[in-house]
Every structure is written in structure tokens, then in C-alpha cells.
């Protein structure tokens, strides 16, 4: 098994009076795609936001690439090599597609060849290059959000429910993008409820419930074990299959 790039050990997160994460233990192997599954309210989004430093862990530790990032600020975590695509997409609606990507390219000007590579699986970005991102459809905004996260190489990509509410054709584009990203040795931690979308993409999987990881292992084991799926993901699968 590859060495871990990210390790969460006993992570607790409180938001106000609510105790959301209640001791999350998660290992994300370097270079693969790890899927975080679970019903609504299980704590998946909170896990990503805690890794990103947007909500601070109240207990536990988060190690990324050998560094303890538990108490680091969000900008420092981003500069350590983690990119984040939130569930809301959070594109900058008044900035053009080009400007959204330009801001994400911290090291300087946009890399033309990399932009071409990204536009290869998101052609709509080319078409709307000079348009304010706020004028785009939901699927196109998702493309901008993912393109922004990968406009420069990052060590780890956190993606929160990218297929939510999108048309099947766009979901196919996203799947192609994630396959290509896997080939570039980018590590991806993908939160998703659409098991059909991730079962052929994922290398490893963690299943969350009530703020804890209650299963982790290889995705192929879960994909071939319907009883396990039913036990771990019963409600989620009913809504997606």
C-alpha cells in the first residue's frame, strides 16, 4: 500500500454547541483517489473543511505530507499543496472564467499548455473564457471550480460532492477529468453520495456515519460486496441506484 499523504487521527470538530466530528481516523494513500461516502449529515463536508482549516479541529491531529497542519491557517494549508473544491463551488461570480483561474495560479501567469489540457475535458471553459462565472450554468460553474483547483499541480485535491444536481453528460465529463487527474499522480479525496459515480473511480474508500469513519478499505472490495454496501450505505444506495 502506498505511503499516506494525509492522516487524520482522532479528529473532533465542534461548530458552536454541536459536536460534529467525533474522532475521525482516516488515511489517504498518496497518488490514488479516496472516496468518502456517507449519508447526509454524517460529517463528510465537515471533514474536508477541517482538513482545510476552515473549521478548526478541537482534538486530534491532521498530518499532511509529513507536516502537522492541525493548527495551521487556511492560506498556509493551501500553500502546503492542498486544493479545495467546496460543495457550493464558490466560483467568483463577478470575475471571468479566465480571472477565476488566474487567481488560483499563485505562482504567476497561467500555464497555457495546462489550460489547454484542462479545456480538453471541460471545453465549455474555452467558450466562456471571457464571461463572468456567475452567468454560467451549474455544471459549467462546477467545471470552473475544479479547473481552478487543478490550474496548477497540487499534492492533494479535496472535492466535495461534485456531481450534485448535474446532468449525466456533465457527470461523464467530471469522471473523465478525475481519471486524467489520477494519471498525473494527484491525490484526490472525493466526498460523494453517488456511489455509481465513484465505484469505478475510487481506489480506497471511507464510509462515515455520526461523525466517525465506520469502514475503510479498498473500493473494489466494497464495490463487489453488495451485503456490505447495503449495511454501510443502505439509504444512500436506495436513492442513487
Amino acid at each position, binding site marked *: 500500500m502506498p505511503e499516506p499523504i494525509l492522516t487524520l487521527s482522532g479528529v473532533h470538530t465542534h461548530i458552536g454547541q454541536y459536536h460534529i466530528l467525533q474522532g475521525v481516523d482516516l488515511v489517504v494513500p498518496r497518488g490514488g483517489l479516496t472516496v468518502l461516502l456517507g449519508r447526509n449529515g454524517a460529517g463528510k463536508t465537515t471533514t474536508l473543511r477541517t482538513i*482545510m482549516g*476552515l473549521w478548526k479541529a478541537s482534538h486530534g491531529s491532521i498530518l499532511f505530507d509529513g507536516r502537522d497542519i492541525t493548527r495551521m*491557517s*487556511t*492560506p498556509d494549508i*493551501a*500553500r502546503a499543496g492542498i486544493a*479545495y473544491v*467546496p460543495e457550493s463551488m*464558490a466560483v*467568483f*461570480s*463577478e*470575475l*471571468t472564467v*479566465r*480571472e477565476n*483561474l*488566474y*487567481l*488560483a*495560479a*499563485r505562482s*504567476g*501567469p*497561467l*500555464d*497555457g*499548455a*495546462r*489550460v*489547454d*489540457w484542462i*479545456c480538453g475535458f471541460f*471545453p465549455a*471553459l*474555452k*467558450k*466562456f*473564457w*471571457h*464571461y*463572468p462565472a456567475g*452567468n454560467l450554468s451549474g455544471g459549467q460553474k462546477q467545471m470552473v471550480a475544479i479547473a*481552478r483547483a487543478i490550474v496548477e499541480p497540487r499534492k492533494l485535491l479535496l472535492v466535495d460532492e461534485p456531481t450534485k444536481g448535474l446532468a449525466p453528460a456533465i457527470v461523464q465529463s467530471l469522471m473523465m477529468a478525475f481519471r486524467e487527474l489520477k494519471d498525473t499522480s494527484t491525490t484526490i479525496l472525493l466526498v460523494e453520495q453517488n456511489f455509481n459515480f465513484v465505484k469505478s473511480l475510487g481506489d480506497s474508500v471511507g464510509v462515515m456515519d455520526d461523525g466517525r469513519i465506520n469502514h475503510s478499505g479498498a473500493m473494489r472490495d466494497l464495490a463487489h460486496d453488495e451485503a456490505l454496501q447495503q449495511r454501510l450505505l443502505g439509504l444512500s444506495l436506495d436513492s442513487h441506484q
Partner: protein
Amino acid sequence: MSATLPVSQTTPDTALPAARRDILPLLLVPALALAVLPFISLPTWVTLTVAGLAMGMMIFIMASGLTLVFGLMSVLNFGHGAFVSVGAFSATMVLLPMRGWLEADSLPANLGVLGLAVLVAMLVTAVLGWAFERVVIMPVYGQHLKQILVTMGGMIVSEQLINVIWGADQIALPLPASLRGAIFLGDAAIEKYRLLAVVVGLAVFAAMFLTLNRTRIGLLIRAGVENGEMVEALGYRVRRLFVGVFAAGSALAGLGGVMWGLYKETLVASMGSEIMVMVFIVVIIGGLGSIEGCFIGALLMALLHNYAGFLAPKLNLVSNIVLMIAILMWRPAGLYSKGKL
């Protein structure tokens, strides 16, 4: 993937043309100027128009900082006028001791000492703005009612401190020798200082427009307003950015204060609070956070003020309010909505 391109050149072949700009508000300025032309002789019209443009530019310089702070940081800074006053009084620390340079019959000497005074004023107000943000504003972010109270309190304290430091009497601030008097275009007299105000106002507008639209820091400011959390997740420190914006806005108010003080040729501690009514009207009709709207709003208000003062002096008293009502009935969010340039 090694070749890099500046973002302005990275344009995929199949890109649709950029969305068209909304230029309707911009057309209001020439439309207003041309609308009054039949009622005024040409030389008088030229004089009034240049005077209106100059006044508009000075108000724009003072208002531009406020609209950035108001629209981008969602801070209701009723103490903005304090930076106008402090800027003007700080300039006297250079202008009065170097009065000989001001009186010299040499344009470079006059502009040199004026430039130095402006630099000092902007530096002092930027530092004051930074301290004001740290001490007064920071505890009340997101609490608009408290912002109004503490910033008004801050302005009162600032005015009293001006009285303590520079005295309670008015300070005469004569124009540099080279900027006194007028030049003539035919029969139209145009005051030299007003021409300088127009040039400085245009330069400030161009600099702000280019900064907000063509630089990474400008894009970060606009993005940070919309979603500061996401900007942080991209690796940028939003807090530092906003403190910088506040200090820059304060420095612009200081610059505006120096120009307004020279325009009036007299300084009083309350000059900032007195001009704030006009500044707030400009910010509101321009659209909160919009530099372009602020620029057009300032020009419209100043031109209307001058034309009304000449054609119907009694109407001049209400011209600002009438303009604000008319524009808000047409566009309730102001000429340009938040953040658009």
C-alpha cells in the same frame, strides 16, 4: 506544460467575445452637459463645466476610498471625513514651513512641494486608517449599528485632536503661485488649479480602474468581497488584504482633503464632516463598492450643482437630493451594482 502565458494572452481560439459593458450611466455625463448648453453662453458653459468636473474629481477622490471600504468590506465608516481633515492638516506640516517654495515663480518648485505635502498627507492618513481599522473597526465587523456609532465617535475624537494639535483657528492655505489665476480659451476662463484637479482625478480613477481590473491584487479584492473564505482556500490572506484596502482608502481621503483644502484655501477641523454628505450621496448613487459608479456619480453631482447654481440658484439647494432620487428610481442599487467596474 512548461510554456507560460500572461493571463491577458491566454485566450482560447473558440472563446466567445467578452460580455458588453453597461455604458448607459457613463453617457449621462455628456448628456447632462449637452442638455444645458442651449441655456448658457458657450464661454460660461465651458467655465462651469470645467469647474464642475474639477469639483467632481475632488469629491470622487474622497469618495472612492469610502466606496471601497463600504462596498468591499461592508463597513459603514462614518468617520471617513476624519481622514479628509487629517490629510489636509497634515499637508500644512509641509506647505506652511515651505511657503517660500509655494510662493516661488517656478512650476517645478510649486509642484514639488505640493507633491511632498500630498505624500505626507497620504502617509499619515494611511497609518491612521490602519490604526483606525485595528482599534475601532475590527471589534465591530459585521455589526453595522455599532460601526455607525464607533466611527462617528472616532470622527468626533479626530476633529478634537486636530484642534489640539493645530489649534482651533482656521488655517489659510494659499494656492501655489503657478496655480493661481486662470487661462483663457477664447472668452472662457478656466482656473489653473481646477485643471490640475481634473488631471489628478483622472489619474486616480485610471489607477484604481486598472488596479482592480488588471492586477492580481485587484482581482483578489473583488473576489475577497464575494467569498473571502474561498480566497483564503486559494492560499491568500484576506485579512491583510482588507486592512490594506482600508489604509489605501484612508490615504485617498487624505489626498482628497489636501485638494479640497487648496480649493477652499482655508482649513477647518470640521471640513471632513461637512463634505461627507456629498460623499455619501455619491457613494449611494454610484452603487456601493463601484469605483466606476462613484466616478460618474461625483461628476454628475458636481456638474448639476454648478449648472443649477448658475441657472436657478434656489434649485441648487436641492439639486443633490433630486439627482439621488432620480438615479435611485432608475436604478435602485445605484448606477453600477457592487463590485462591478
